[in-house]
């Protein structure tokens, strides 16, 4: 079974390569597409350069992976040891995760100077949140009896964490790390875009600027291959360590009853205040230069006194939203839709799932220049990049969710000869909803990342471009304003989706909400 699937996988990969070459042959010298043969030739001619770049990128990605995951482990253990801190820590972690890397990158660059700092920091920022969510779920998911086992001896949460939860969450940690590995490479490459001197990102920028199609394709292929490889390697190590890998559903934390709006509002205000105080005090503690490290009050003053700045910001945000929202919805819709279709034809889903899992680890954004090269600087290119970025994780999550329909329920529908469509509608789709919403939430920061990076690298529009522009012209007031706006928008959107999720799951999958 696995063996035939493996052969299927190789065959479809070969077919894809052949198709790619044929298309490339049809459009020779098109300045858009280079076939696999051109890519291979380019790689052969530049082996030294490329291998140095891969080494540099992997080096930074590895350090970012380490720091990011260490942070995730510390945060999630804190949440387990101090359950009351969960909401605050989760929201702070989310806010930091929603920071637009496109803007934090240049600021970190000013802070660190030339070295590897920004690449490592961005790689860490790109990985910690998924690992954090996976670990919180994993650390919590132990049977009541196991936790009673430590309490019966009068031992506290620390003992429980050490003897039981830590080991029990290993499958979840590994699942999180597996997703984190390609993300670290992506983060490192975005860090390299901000003006590093070595790495795949540096070469990608250079190839784009000189319209070197062969090099662009070769670099994108290389980044994709390396990402798929690290994903595979971590999965392999994981399978040696634990017998049953976890399929993680990052369900939202349980809520006790319905919160009224005034209470939620109070909490939101408290959180915003906390973020602002942290922002201000971190900068003061590290004594960061006021010229580029703007404090909340600086931004407040800038935005309240400067009409022109406000309208620039508004225009950019509108432009960006007009691309983000359709791309986001299209990616989610296509991912869920295809998952449903594939499940109606089970043989197909068995073939597609491994391919989709491999493709998820491709750093889509680094192929943004290619897509824009092919489709031009209009809206379509950007929307497609956003959609593709979201499509694969959604497809995988939904396929896994659809498979989790309990066997007895399927048998019950079979016994009524209810037919596949009805089974889908009444049993499978409700079973898929938690997975769907989990990916809908995670897709929001991803969508913003895709949009801003594409605007920055390729289209020269929207808030991504505004960030890039203000970073080069040292207009840090505007840069920070853009960061605030994007972070707030992403966090808000995430929380809105979380509310919708809770409302819908309360009806369709109440056991998930109660956690």
């Amino acid at each position, binding site marked *: 079974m696995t063996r035939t699937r493996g052969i299927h996988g190789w065959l479809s990969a070969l077919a894809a390569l052949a198709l790619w070459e044929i298309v490339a042959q049809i459009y020779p010298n098109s300045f858009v597409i280079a076939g696999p043969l051109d890519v291979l030739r380019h790689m052969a001619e530049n082996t030294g350069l490329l291998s140095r770049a891969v080494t540099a990128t992997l080096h930074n990605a590895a350090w970012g992976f380490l720091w990011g995951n260490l942070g995730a482990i510390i945060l999630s253990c804190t949440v387990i040891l101090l359950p009351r801190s969960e909401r605050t820590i989760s929201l702070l972690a989310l806010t930091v995760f929603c920071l637009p890397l496109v803007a934090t990158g240049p600021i970190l660059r000013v802070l660190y100077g030339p070295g590897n700092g920004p690449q490592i920091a961005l790689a860490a920022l790109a990985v910690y949140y998924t690992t954090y969510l996976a670990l919180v779920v994993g650390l919590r998911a132990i*049977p009541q*009896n196991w936790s*009673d*086992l*430590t*309490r*019966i*001896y*009068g*031992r506290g949460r620390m003992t429980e964490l050490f003897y039981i939860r830590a080991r029990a969450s290993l499958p979840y940690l590994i699942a999180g790390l597996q997703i984190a590995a390609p993300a670290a490479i992506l983060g490192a490459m975005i860090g390299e875009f901000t003006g590093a001197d070595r790495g795949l990102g540096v070469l990608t920028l250079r190839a784009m600027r000189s319209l070197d199609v062969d090099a662009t394709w070769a670099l994108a292929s290389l980044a994709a291959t390396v990402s798929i490889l690290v994903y595979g390697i971590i999965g392999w190590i994981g399978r040696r360590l634990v017998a049953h890998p976890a399929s993680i559903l990052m369900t939202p934390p349980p809520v006790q009853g319905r919160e009224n709006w005034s209470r939620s509002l109070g909490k939101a205000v408290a959180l915003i205040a906390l973020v602002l105080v942290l922002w201000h005090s971190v900068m003061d503690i590290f004594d960061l230069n006021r010229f580029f490290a703007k404090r909340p009050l600086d931004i407040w003053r800038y935005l309240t006194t400067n009409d022109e700045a406000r309208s620039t910001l508004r225009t950019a945000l509108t432009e960006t939203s007009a691309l983000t929202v359709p791309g986001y919805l299209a990616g989610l819709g296509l991912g869920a839709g295809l998952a449903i279709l594939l499940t109606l034809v089970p043989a197909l889903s068995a073939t597609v799932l491994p391919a989709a899992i491999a493709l998820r680890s491709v750093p889509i954004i680094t192929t943004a220049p290619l897509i824009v090269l092919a489709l031009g600087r209009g809206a379509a290119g950007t929307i497609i990049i956003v959609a593709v970025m979201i499509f694969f994780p959604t497809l995988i999550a939904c396929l896994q969710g659809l498979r989790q329909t309990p066997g007895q329920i399927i048998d019950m529908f079979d016994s009524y000869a209810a037919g596949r469509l009805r089974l889908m509608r009444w049993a499978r789709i409700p079973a898929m909803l938690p997975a769907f919403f989990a990916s809908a939430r995670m897709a929001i920061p991803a969508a913003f990342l895709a949009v801003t990076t594409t605007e920055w690298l390729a289209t020269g529009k929207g808030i991504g471009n505004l960030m890039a522009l203000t970073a080069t012209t040292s207009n840090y007031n505007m840069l920070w304003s853009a960061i605030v706006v994007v972070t707030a928008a992403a966090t808000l959107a995430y929380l809105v989706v979380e509310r919708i999720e809770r409302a819908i799951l309360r009806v369709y999958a109440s056991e998930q909400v109660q956690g």
Partner: protein
Amino acid sequence: MRCSPMSGAAVELNGVSKVFGTGDAKVDAVAPLDLMLKAGQTTALVGPSGCGKSTVLRMIAGLEDPTTGTVQIGTETPKALARRGAVSMAFQDPSLLPWRTLHSNIALGLKLARKPSNPDQVNALIDLVGLSGFGDRRPAELSGGMRQRAAIARCLISEPELVLLDEPFGAVDAITRNRLNLELPPLWRDRGTTAVLVTHSVQEAVLLSDRILVLSPRPAAVVADITVDQTTIPVPNTPDFQRVCDDVSDALGAVAA
């Protein structure tokens, strides 16, 4: 193994009751209970499913706080006893940690009770519960009955003053269960450990305990308090044994009706 007779602790419940939840979701699980369990005795709780037996056990263990009343064990609160590592509990399913070997699962009982680790003592107990040679196996490689033995061993390794057994043999087949019923109880009984046992089997209750409390449907209240003379009665299929079983069954039948 050290065998100090009468090392158990008496258990006293004064007006202990438990209500879960509030408002519409309110569940009256246990009606106010006054009980005195003598040190070194094994007491069985029997009653219809969902009547609150596990809740009583968990309150004695200090895992659940009573809504009213107090639990006293010897001169201490359950939580103080727990902090000394002087109480242990076996759950309905063995709850062994799948990543630990049998030996280290049992040794965990010592660690959690803050007692010095002692591999020889663990091995001796492994032999006593009939698992010789399986010390380095993981739970997944053992049968259900073997896992139950291991869970009981984990319970007893710390030489507690009080053991709480919540349907410890619930998940094994009848034949294995009969064997475990004969082989395991002496391990705590001979050491004079106080034990509270929840079971659905009348025979098991009569076989293992000095005293049987029959509980009413929720909220649990004691409807019959039957003493079993362990020096004469627990020989299955004798008229005496059958008579006690009938008493318990009658009491159960009365509450179920």
